Structures are given as C-alpha cells and as structure tokens.
C-alpha cells in the first residue's frame, strides 16, 4: 500500500472577499494566484474589480450610521472580542504568516502576538479618545464651549505590502475604534492572513459592513478607492511611492484626509497618528445665563 | 372640575399658547422610564390575568387593499372564538376594518358583544377634503360601526395649524353620532414626544373618546415611550377636566411579551382605572395568536406551536 493512498487529503479553503458581512467572490469572476515564500502555489485569491470596490464602499457607508452611533464602550467591547477570537486562532495565523512571509516559527509567533496585543491596545482606546482629544475651551464670554472628536466616515486603507497581518491590523484598527468604517485592500502579495482575519471579524460582534476586505491588484483597485467621492479618508501606505502620489492627487477631488506612510516598523508601539487622522473636531457654543 | 370647559372658544393663538405651554418631555428620561417599566417581571397568576386582559383589549385588525368579505368573516369568527380548543379564552374587544367592510363585520358580530370599529377620514394618510372625510365617517356609522378610528391631519399639525386639526376632530365627532371616536395621532410622523403630548391634548380638548398611536402603516408605530406620554396625558386630562379618555396602542405589537409591557405601562402611569377594554386597546393582528400560545403554555406547561392556532 502506498503512503499516498493512506494519506488524508486536506480540504482547502477558498479565499473570498469580505463585503457587507458576507463572503462573495469578485463580481468579475476573476482570481489570481498567490504564492508562498518559496514561490509555490498557495491559493487563488479573489481579484477584486472596481465594482467590488464600489460595493464595499456602499456597504461601509451603510454601516457607518450604526457604528458611529454605538457607544464608545460598545465599540471597545466589540474590538476586544475580536482579540479574543484572534487569540483562539493563534496557531492558524502563525501558520499562514509563516507560509506567506517565510518567517521562522518564533518570529511568526511574535508577530501574531503583536497583532493580537495591538488589537487589544486599540480596543482600549475607544472610550478614551474623547478625553484625550476633546476639550472644553475657556472662551472669553458667557459661553460654554466644548470640542468633540467625531469619526470622519468611510476610510479606505491600502494595507502594507510586506506585513501581512501585523501591518494590516495596525492600519485598520485605528480607523474603526473611533467609529469610522473601513474598506481595506489587503497586501497584493500576501493577502491570505487578511482574509482569515475577515473570518474572525464575521464571527465576532463586528456589525456587517464596518470592515470590508478586498484582495486583488493594488494598481487596479486603489485608484477607484482614491477617486471615490463617498470615501472620506484614505491610507496610502501599501501603495508604492509613484502610485501613492497619483492616488493622493485623485484623493484631492473631494478633499479626502490622506495618510501617507510606507514601510514602517510595525513592531514599534504605534503613536496616535492614524487614530487622529480619521477624526473631525466639532466645537459647540452655548450661552450660560438665566 | 376645573375652570377649563371641554368646548371653550379656542383660536389658533390660544391653542398654540396652551399646547406650547404644556411641560416638555425629556426624551431620554421618558425612554429610561419606559425601559425600566419594561423590565417588570410578570409571572404565574399575574401573567394569567394579564394575558386574558390583553386578549380582551385587542382590536383585531385587517386593513389591507386585498380585504374581502370572506376575510372579514373569518376574522370575526376568530374574534368571537379566538382559541378553537379552549372556550374559556376571552373574546377580543373589537374588529377593526375599512368602512366598506363594516357592514359585513356588523352582521357577523351582531349580538356577540364584540364592537365594530371602522377606520375613516381617508385613512391612513388623511389627505382628502373635509367633505370627503365626513362622508367617510357617516358611511361607516350607517353601515353599523359603533367605533370610528379617525386620523388627524398631520400636515396641518406639523405646520402649526392647530385650529384646523381641532375643528376637524370636532366635526368628525359630530358625524360619529353615537359611535365612539378614536383619534389617531400617527406618532411615527409626529416624531418628537413633545409633539405627541401636544397632539394628545389637542385631540382630547376637541372631544376624542380615545387617543390612538398609529395607523400601523408607518414605521415606527406604537412604542412604549410614545404610549407612556399619551398615558400621562390622559391621566392629567382627567385630573384637569374630570373626563376620562382611553388610549389605544396600535401597530408593531407582535408578541405577548410586548403586550404585557403595555399593560404594566398603563398600570403604573395612568393607573388601574384604565386597565379595562373600555379604556385601553391594543390594535393588532398576529399578536392574538402569540397571546393564545402563551396562555396555552401556562395552562398545559408545554411550549405550543403555530399549528394549534388558526390563521385567519
């Protein structure tokens, strides 16, 4: 009897898009080959089209009202729950990151742990942003005056190319913690951990449409997000510099808030840049008198 | 009895001054109070009483374009004998239909004690001339309706033409003759609780026998906070005027649990004087089967299923 005859055949996963809480294939019917770090076949990932991008933005917009109106406490709870589920799937993610990026086991574990802890860090921000970023302003007059941070709306994110999980988490979490909704384009080369993350999102308490994950060709999809008039902000860090410049120009059409970045060391503790980038500030005046 | 009479000479100016002079409603506070009352736990004997009370307060309703005499007859049969397996289940309070089916309902319900309620006044939108609306009412009453559910002119109300709304209600009340008049505020379109309070008072000052939340054709329909405000209004109105007005919560009340919450609301807001079909109604259709299911569960100890209750 040959070993092959006795071996158990694995049931391989299909990697689809995550839009509006569901897992559709691309409406274009296309997929592209994802290779592992040795160059061998890893999977066929969905190749998102401009229509998928359009649908994702619509889903994000639809989800924005509910998500931004949720209490900060509730958002923090939801994000913490995601971290719990990530922790539960730790070994799966370690395997996927290893396969994608070709890292040794300890390095991969460290990155996955960092991704989980990063998610926890952001979860704890939800009910503190207003205290750190808001203020009462001592105007010269009989008025009560306060400034409130508010989420800007739908945020498009071109996720980092090289850091398939930690980088992805580091650019998505800061947007949603304050009530924004996100359309994220995963790394073109290493999209699979992001898709697995969307499975975690779908089974946690994250409402449908709050985070949408697209996979595909950056150069094809990113321009549609950058030029979309119903997207309020965009993070360009996953786009190569020349493309990023073009995207920034397109983004100017509706004055999107633009975050530039590039190859950051995602293992460093994050500062507040990304959380603050997606916040508007509303200042309210009211007289104090009898 | 206070110095205010039921039919003084009101004007747009005096009505506005009165209605806008009523104490405001803090929405957050009202919602919190309604939510707290919704957390009351009604068990065993209390639940038994409440389920039967709720059934006896139902205006069993069909208001569809596709209604036919056959449909109305089936509903009337259900109204008189809600539970095919249990004759001890009480009858409902009324059947509620469109005016052109009132005669069918009246014939079926004759002598049973179940009232015939007809909507009127160009229900549900209320957008028609006064003549047409009054004709609608007279037609329904002549056909045998002993209760009329009218809609207020929300357009007039929201644009501040209170006198118009008032006069219309007075005219409809007159056209009702001996039928008793429920005034539908359509709270989903009034939106704010301040508006609900004002519309409630306006309807009562104009002679309403009942104030009713909704047509059921607009979402949101009846809610606990809206009904809370209306119950406060009828309570205060009786205090000031010595006249008791009823409250009907209609639309969106689907489960026995919902219905019991409304009864608790009545009990702890207006008080037990209103805990009677004469003064409180629930406008619903599918609610009845859920009440019967809960009733059966209490009696048998087993959870029941939809096969054991009739779909009419």
């Amino acid at each position, binding site marked *: 009897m040959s070993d092959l005859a006795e071996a158990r055949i694995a049931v391989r996963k299909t990697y689809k898009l995550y839009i509006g809480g569901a897992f559709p294939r691309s409406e274009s019917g296309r997929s592209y080959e994802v290779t592992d770090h040795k160059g061998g076949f890893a999977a066929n990932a969905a190749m998102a089209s401009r229509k998928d991008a359009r649908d994702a933005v619509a889903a994000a917009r639809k989800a924005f009202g509910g998500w931004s109106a949720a209490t900060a406490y509730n958002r923090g709870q939801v994000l913490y729950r995601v971290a719990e589920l990530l922790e539960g799937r730790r070994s799966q993610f370690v395997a996927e990151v290893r396969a994608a990026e070709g890292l040794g086991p300890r390095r991969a574990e460290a990155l996955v742990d960092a991704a989980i*802890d990063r998610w926890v860090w952001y979860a704890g*921000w939800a009910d503190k942003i207003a205290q750190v970023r808001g203020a009462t302003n001592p105007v010269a007059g009989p008025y009560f005056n306060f400034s409130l941070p508010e989420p800007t709306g739908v945020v498009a994110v071109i996720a980092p190319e090289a850091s398939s999980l930690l980088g992805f988490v580091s650019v998505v979490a800061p947007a949603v913690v304050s009530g924004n909704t996100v359309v994220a384009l995963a790394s073109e080369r290493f999209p699979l951990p992001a898709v697995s993350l969307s499975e975690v999102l779908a089974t946690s308490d994250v409402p449908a449409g709050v985070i949408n994950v697209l996979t595909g060709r950056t150069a094809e999809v990113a321009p549609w997000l950058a030029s979309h008039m119903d997207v309020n902000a965009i993070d360009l860090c996953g786009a190569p510099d020349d493309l990023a410049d073009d995207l920034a120009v397109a983004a100017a059409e509706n004055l999107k808030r633009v975050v530039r970045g590039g190859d950051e060391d995602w293992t460093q503790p994050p500062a507040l840049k990304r959380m603050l980038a997606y916040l508007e500030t509303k200042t309210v005046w009211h007289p104090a008198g009898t | 009895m206070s110095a205010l009479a039921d039919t003084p000479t009101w004007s747009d100016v005096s009505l506005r001054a009165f209605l806008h002079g009523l104490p405001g409603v*803090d929405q957050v506070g009202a919602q919190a109070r309604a939510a707290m009352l919704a957390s009351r736990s009604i068990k065993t004997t209390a639940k038994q009483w409440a389920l039967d009370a709720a059934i006896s307060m139902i205006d069993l309703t069909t208001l569809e374009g596709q209604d036919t005499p056959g449909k109305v007859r089936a509903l009337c049969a259900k109204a008189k004998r809600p539970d095919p397996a249990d004759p001890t289940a009480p009858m409902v309070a009324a059947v509620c239909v469109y005016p052109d089916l009132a005669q069918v309902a009246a014939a079926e319900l004759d002598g049973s004690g179940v009232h015939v309620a007809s909507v009127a006044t160009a229900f549900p939108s209320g957008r028609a001339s006064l003549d047409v609306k009054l004709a609608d009412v007279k037609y329904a009453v002549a056909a045998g309706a002993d209760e009329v559910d009218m809609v207020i002119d929300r357009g007039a109300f929201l644009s501040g033409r209170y006198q118009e709304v008032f006069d219309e209600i007075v005219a409809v009340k007159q056209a009702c003759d001996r039928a008793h008049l429920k005034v539908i505020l359509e709270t989903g379109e009034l939106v704010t609780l301040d508006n609900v309070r004002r519309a409630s008072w306006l309807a009562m000052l104009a002679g309403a026998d009942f104030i009713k939340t909704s047509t059921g054709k607009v979402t949101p329909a009846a809610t606990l906070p809206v009904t809370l405000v209306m119950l406060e209004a009828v309570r205060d109105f009786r205090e000031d005027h010595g006249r008791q007005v009823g409250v009907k919560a209609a639309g969106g009340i689907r489960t026995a649990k919902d219905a019991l919450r409304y009864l608790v609301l009545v009990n702890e807001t207006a008080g037990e004087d209103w805990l009677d079909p004469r003064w409180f109604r629930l406008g619903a259709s599918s609610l009845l089967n859920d009440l019967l299911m809960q009733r059966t569960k209490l009696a048998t100890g087993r959870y029941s299923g939809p096969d054991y209750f009739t779909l009419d």
Partner: protein
Amino acid sequence: MAKFEYAPAPESRAVVSLRESYGLFIGGEFAPGVDGRAFKTISPATEEVLAEVTEAGPADVDRAVTAARKAYEHTWALMPGTERAKYLFRIARIVQERARELAVLESLNNGKPIRESRDVDIPLVAAHFFYYAGWADKLEYAGYGQAPRPLGVAGQVIPWNFPLLMLAWKIAPALACGNTVVLKPAETTPLTALAFAEICQQADLPPGVVNIITGAGETGRALVTHPGIDKVAFTGSTEVGKEIARACAPTRKKLTLELGGKAANIVFEDAPIDQAVEGIVNGIFFNQGHVCCAGSRLLVQESVYSEVMAALRRRLGTLRLGDPLDKNTDVGAINSAAQLAKIRELSQVGEAEGAERWSPPCDLPVKGFWFPPTVFTGVSQAHRIAREEIFGPVLSVLTFRTPAEAVEKANNTPYGLSAGIWTDKGSLILWMASRLRAGVVWANTFNKFDPTSPFGGYKESGYGREGGRHGLEAYLDV
C-alpha cells in the same frame, strides 16, 4: 386588592454558592486570620446568617501589606502595561460571565433590589475594569507626563452601599497604574469582595497584587495607618474621613476621600415635570437613599410646588418595597440595624423640628430592616434634616423663587458632592452648573454613573476624583 397584582417574581438563589466561612485573601490564597476573630454576615432583608467571615487583626493587616509590597516590587511594577491591561481585561470578562451570581450575592448581602444590582451595579463593575484596563498601556497619553510611575501599595477602605462597585472604583485604576492593593470591604457587606478574590484567582492574577481583608473599624484603622502603605483611598462618612485625614497628615501618604453629601435636586418651573419627578424619585429612593450623592434636598421653584408635589406623591404610590430578590422590587432593605436606627432618629428629629412627614402606604416585612420612602415638607435650611446626611430614603423639600436663590441654598452646606438641575432651558443649566459648588452636576437626569465620568466632591464631601482620565491621578506619582 389591586386589579393587576404582580405575582412574586423571585430571582433564584441557586446561582450563588456560599461557603460556611471565609478566611482572608492574602498573597493569592484564602487563609485563616492569625490574630483576628470571626464574625457573621447577614441578609438585612431576613436577618438570616449568610456566612462567617474573618476579622483581620493587626498581624493580618501586616501580612497583607507585606504581600502587596512583595508583589509590587517583584512583579507588578516591573510588568509592562500591556500585560497588566490583559489581566484587567480578564477580570472584566469574568465579572461579566459571573454577572448573575454576583448580582444575587450583592442583593443578598446588601439588601438592594436585584433589578438594581443586575442592571446597574454589576454592569458598571465590569465597565470600570474594562475602562481602566485600557489605560494600563496608555499612561503616557493620560496627561501626566511621558512615563508616570505608580505610588506603590494602596490601602483602600470601602463602604457598604455599593460594595462591589466601590471595590471596582478602587482596584481598577490602582492596578492599571501599576500599584498593588490591600482592600477592606465594609463590615456588613464582605461577600462580593470575597467573590472578587476568587475572580482574581480565576484570572491567574499574580499573588499579592490584590489582597482582601475583611473586618470593621479597627481593621480599617490598622490598614490606613500602616507604615507600609503609600496611598490611602477611603469612601465613607465625612466623620471617619476627617479622622483618616488627621492620621495621614504627618505622613507622606497620598490620600483621596469620597465622603458624604446633602445634594440639592433643583426643579425649575419649566422642567419636564414627569421626568423631573422620576429624577427626584431616582435621586433619593434609588438604593434606599444609601447614596453619598443622593438628591436628598428637593429645591422646587415655588410656582410649581403644588404640581410637583402632587405628581411626586402619586408616583411614590407605585414604588414597590420588599424582598430584594424579587425582580419587581423598587425599594429594598436598609443595610443594617444601626443604619435603620440612625434614619429613624433623624426622621423623628424632622418631625420634632416642625416639618410635615409623609410616606405612601407601605407594608413593611416583619423580619429585616425596613424604612418606607419618606418625604418631609415645610423644611427650611435651618432644620437638621436639611443639613445632616440621613443616608436613607428620606427627602426634605424646600422651595426657592429665583435661580440665584436656588444656587445660594444649594451651596449653603459644608458638603459639595453633587447637584441636580431640572429645566428645559439650556442656558440656565450651564449658568447653574458653573455656579454650583458640587463635583457632579446632573442636568435633567440623576444618579448616572460611568467609568469615563469623574466623580468626587468639593469641600467636606472629600477630595480626589474617581473615574475618567482624572481618576488616574490618585494612583500615579504626579
């Protein structure tokens, strides 16, 4: 008999499993006291004995402080904030998982209605741990400098009115900032604190980070005066707070105090009346009036006095007093015989001073400690019942004519914990709020708490704030 009698709707006690006796929780373990006696803890609704607990003697206090110091120096202060955070998140989660059990235990031991412990106390406990968990790894953003340090070992003494919630208010920020704690729950309400000790074990919290020592006044005194304590936090009566302030004065210990109050709940003529009545009821009858920030003085504008009082009396008639474990109970038991005696005494004083006393008709159970919701009208500022904290379901009603007069009367007290304002006019709310000398001002609401919202008093209601970013200050070396 009422038309719609709510049948008994008891919450089951089966979810709670009580031990016959409890030791002290020191260094991660329950162990008998070294030099303390045992005392019984009861249910104030039925006077039944629930369990025996240990009174920690001076040697026990010393052991606890030593364990806390050891944990601080060898473990907790060295641990990165991200890891401390995760312990606190674990604790928050376990509180949520055991929510029903904790709520029933709280109602049993304290006397408060299950609806309140279930819907208010316990959810807030979890929320406090969640909130402060999130600060543990973000202290550099809290506005206290780049790398604020903890103080060391905190000695914390809490009252009986919100036992587990007061524990959460103390322990969550202390741990988040990197301190370790020795906490003494109130003499009459030790059980949820002891359950919390079990939760610490379930969360695998390093031994000695949290120590729970039960006992009465002596134990508390020994704890706050122990030389090994760097920080003292006390919530309780003003009288004891002053004693502690005196004891700490010659030392380097940092101190925060959350003491008594005699809050004015101010109702203007344009108030949303039905909601204002709810606010009045909530203000003084929530938790049987055992609330430091209770709206115990109703200041109602003269022009709406009769309307408000009529509505209030009518509303009080629907309050349900009885078995704390019945889900429909609104007013539970008074926490102890001693407290009941105080409330009765001051109520008698009120009558003797000439105020008119009124209560809705109320059936008081035979066993246990009970007091009906009570309203005194015709009260003036000079009356003792307008000045002294009764800490029970007793409302004193005064009137005023103008906003300035309301402010004057509201502020005319050595206390300054909270105040309420009821009006439809936004400017008036802000004008009043800026003039009221109170640490918490509720406008068109009352008795609302949130872990993000700083709480604490002016004047003799204490100093320091709990909750919010401000609540970190007490536990940092700043």
